[in-house]
């Protein structure tokens, strides 16, 4: 196992999931739920929260139990752990918010297959202490949640003229039906990503400019 | 299909550029006077360079051997003038690079007469002797590629030439050297054809001439007499003169890719080549001069000329009244395949069929647009390649893919695709660039 001896700051571990290593925009993971259930902001948030719970929970467990899990079966054990959490979420949602559960449909169970979750177990939780693992999971899950929310709200606003079901533009708004349909999901996420890249590039250019200016001064 | 082809006498695809031959088609061939300095590059043919047999300071006679063949695929060089060898070393070649060459300073007082020699009895020669004679005469293909002719005549064991095809297509615009030769010396064309036909043991010979030269076709037909030589009018289409296209047009047969015409029993010679052979056997004159068309909108007095090899292009142009002010580009060869000339001091070579000068209005580089995949290049390419794809891959520097998946190496660089492209994409240049890169990589990997 590769446990780096470098000192790691839990806060940094958390923050990196939000932007620098954002699971959606940078790592391109978990695309299926990202696109499938983001046709409204509320669904996106529900899915994001479900993922949050599963990710943080299983990271905690995996990190705590890592000493007792033989390497050869670790994937299988992780899957069992994750699937257990997902089943729990599934039943809890079904019992408490059946309407949302119906909307999210088959995608709750599919959280198990979200590469993001197993990926964090393998790449992080199984290698680092509990505290770091949980912070990392929180960061990643929040990054995922934010991305879900961004996409969900764009799609809901344009697709229905509403946000969280509240009408924004009055009755006469012409909804952009495509936003709710699959192509709209792909294209909107593509454009969001483009925006993300563009901002990143701008930032780089800005940093370079500042550095240049400082070098000029020195 | 077959019937259709034989009626049409052509190949598939190709393009129809304006032929622009009116400038010089009617002008008789003139001789240019001797000048002060001649440069004979040692490698002006395909194959190994020749090896000098003279030294700096040595006096040479016109027609004297100055370099011997460096290998079997190589040929001899003879002095184009009587004079003194001034230098043997790097001189600028028409492709802009420096190449080893023999520089001869003409003797201004010499008569420049060829020492008279008796005609050679070609009929008595065995094929091997014939081949040796052709090599000794320094004769190479005059159709442009400058491939040593004797090599073409050395037919490997087990192969048989049935047809000799003499290439009088002259499909490149502006050029009229072959045309003038056929019109002015039809008997030499026929005699040269007959010599080669008999020596190769071919059953028949065909002289293929594009139909835009009706006078040449008529004259040749008159001179054929009883000989088994057919004079065939061909559709006017570029590149009718490319040998594989010519074979397709004349005999409706395809030479397999990578193979030579002789593999399907055909030998192809340019009319200039057979005339050079006729002259050598008649008068003993080796290849020391050739016919060159000087034309194009940038030339003051276009002409068809007999030029001693090694004459600087500058001198040839001076004889034609020099370049017009507006000239922007001078090329050697035809406008479709010729080489742009960087330095007018470069010499006329055995393979130089024309010197063409163009002004800004012809050489304006077309505005390049992205390829719109219109397919015109595919329908132009006589080799049925996919030039659009080749150019796209070339731009992306995917040279291996061009070679392995899109038959880069089959391209003869005829330029038909670039001619046809509405987007002004320099397709052939991408192709040449790719070939050059691959060639260099191969040399490098062989070195290691």
């Amino acid at each position, binding site marked *: 196992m*590769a446990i780096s001896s470098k000192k790691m700051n839990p806060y940094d571990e958390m923050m990196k999931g939000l932007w620098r290593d954002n699971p959606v925009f940078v790592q*391109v993971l978990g695309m299926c739920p990202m696109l499938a259930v983001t046709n409204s902001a509320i669904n996106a948030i529900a899915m994001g929260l479900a993922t949050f719970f599963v990710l943080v929970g299983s990271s905690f467990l995996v990190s705590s139990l890592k000493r007792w899990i033989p390497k050869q079966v670790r994937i299988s054990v992780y899957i069992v752990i994750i699937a257990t959490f997902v089943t729990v979420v599934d039943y809890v949602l079904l019992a408490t918010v059946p309407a949302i559960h119906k909307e999210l449909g088959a995608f709750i169970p599919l959280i198990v297959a979200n590469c993001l979750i197993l990926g964090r177990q393998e790449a992080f939780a199984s290698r680092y202490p509990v505290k770091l693992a949980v912070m990392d999971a929180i960061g990643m899950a929040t990054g995922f949640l934010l991305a879900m929310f961004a996409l969900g709200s764009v799609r809901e606003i344009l697709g229905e003229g509403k946000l969280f079901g509240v009408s924004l533009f009055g009755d006469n708004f012409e909804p952009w039906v495509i936003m709710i349909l699959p192509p709209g999901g792909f294209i909107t996420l593509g454009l969001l990503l483009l925006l993300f890249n563009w901002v990143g590039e701008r930032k780089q250019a800005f940093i370079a400019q500042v550095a240049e200016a400082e070098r000029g001064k020195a | 299909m077959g019937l259709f082809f034989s009626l049409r006498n052509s190949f598939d695809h190709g393009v129809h550029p304006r032929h622009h031959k009116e400038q010089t088609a009617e002008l008789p061939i003139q001789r240019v006077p001797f000048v002060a300095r001649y440069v004979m590059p040692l490698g002006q043919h395909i194959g190994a360079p020749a090896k000098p047999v003279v030294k700096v300071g040595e006096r040479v006679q016109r027609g004297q051997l100055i370099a011997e063949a460096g290998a079997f695929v190589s040929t001899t060089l003879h002095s184009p003038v009587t004079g003194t060898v001034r230098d043997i070393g790097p001189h600028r070649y028409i492709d*802009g690079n420096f190449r080893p060459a023999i520089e001869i300073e003409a003797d201004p007082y010499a008569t420049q007469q060829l020492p008279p020699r008796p005609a050679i009895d070609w009929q008595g020669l065995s094929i091997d002797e014939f081949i040796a004679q052709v090599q000794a005469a320094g004769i190479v293909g005059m159709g442009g590629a400058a491939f040593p002719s004797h090599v073409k005549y050395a037919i490997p064991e087990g192969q048989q030439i049935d047809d000799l095809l003499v290439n009088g297509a002259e499909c490149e615009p502006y050029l009229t050297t072959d045309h003038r030769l056929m019109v002015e010396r039809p008997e030499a064309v026929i005699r040269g054809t007959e010599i080669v036909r008999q020596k190769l043991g071919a059953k028949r010979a065909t002289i293929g001439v594009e139909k835009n030269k009706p006078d040449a076709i008529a004259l040749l037909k008159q001179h054929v007499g009883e000989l088994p030589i057919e004079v065939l009018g061909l559709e006017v289409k570029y590149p009718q003169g490319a040998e594989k296209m010519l074979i397709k047009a004349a005999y409706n047969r395809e030479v397999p890719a990578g193979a030579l015409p002789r593999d399907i029993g055909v030998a192809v010679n340019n009319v200039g080549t057979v005339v050079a052979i006729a002259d050598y056997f008649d008068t003993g004159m080796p290849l020391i001069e050739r016919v060159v068309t000087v034309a194009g909108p940038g030339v003051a007095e276009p002409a068809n000329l007999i030029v001693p090899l090694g004459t600087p292009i500058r001198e040839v142009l001076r004889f034609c009244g020099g370049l017009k002010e507006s000239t922007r580009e001078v090329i050697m060869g035809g406008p479709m395949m010729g080489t742009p000339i960087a330095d007018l001091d470069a010499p006329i070579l055995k393979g130089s069929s024309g010197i063409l000068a163009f002004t800004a209005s012809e050489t304006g580089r077309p505005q390049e647009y992205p390829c719109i995949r219109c397919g015109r290049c595919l329908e132009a390419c006589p080799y049925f390649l996919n030039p659009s794809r080749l150019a796209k891959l070339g731009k992306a520097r995917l040279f291996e893919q061009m070679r392995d998946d899109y038959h880069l190496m089959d391209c003869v660089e005829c330029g038909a695709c670039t001619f046809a492209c509405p987007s002004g994409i*320099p397709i052939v240049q991408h192709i040449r660039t790719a070939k050059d890169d691959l060639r260099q990589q191969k040399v490098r990997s062989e070195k290691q």
Partner: protein
Amino acid sequence: MNELLTAPAIMTGLGLFFGVILAVAYKLLRVEEDSRIARTEELLPGTNCGACGEPGCLPFAQKLVVGEVEPSKCTVASSDDIDEIADFLGVDAGEAEKRVARLKCAGGKAQAFQIAEYDGFESCRAAAVVSGGGKGCSWGCLGLADCGVVCDFDAIQMNDNGLPVVDIDKCTACGDCVDACPKDLFELLPLSRKLYVQCNTPLAGESVTVLCSVGCDGCAKCAADAAPGLIEMKNELPLIHYESGLPVTPKATSRCPTGAIQWLEGGQFVEEESQNESRYAQLH
């Protein structure tokens, strides 16, 4: 109550069943392979997400080990992990001394004479196949940046003089520029070889100087000024025998009439004066 038992029972059963099957399969069906592959796969996140463009972590690891891909293609691993993989795989690369690409020509626009004007698309090789591209010296740099285009590390920039300047920090000596240059002008040399001939022409004397003001005219003064045997004149160019072990000093550059031989502190064509300054500083 019944259900309270079925669930754990079924799950334990499944676990046992597949545990046994897999354990047995693992024993019977295992295949030996390069142990580095397994180790590399260990270091990868194991997400099998395909984001690297390979069909999974194992195939990615296989390609990593043979050097076909770079570790950073994995989007999931953190940068530390990636460093670690790079370290692990880099063990046997064993680069003793840093090498950089050096250019055998200093004849930029201001020094080398152009006899004709190339009018085609921007590429040295494309220009080279059109009658040499019009540069008087047919061995010199054409300045159309093929080398810069192929450099994956962004290490080559064309300067105002039309010459490629290699950023010696970015250059990894990958050799792509060497392959790309139609004039064979680049060579990969250890950074420590400071005495360097920036010219490639086999011409000599006046033939050179009419074409280029910084070309080597083959005068052999450098050879005379260096330790005997260090510099040999070959093809009208100085050939420096570093392998001879003879002392190499800037003195060899002192009488060069054209500056074709240079003492390089760092990169080539860095501001001309500072380089000359350092040359003189070394001399005196």
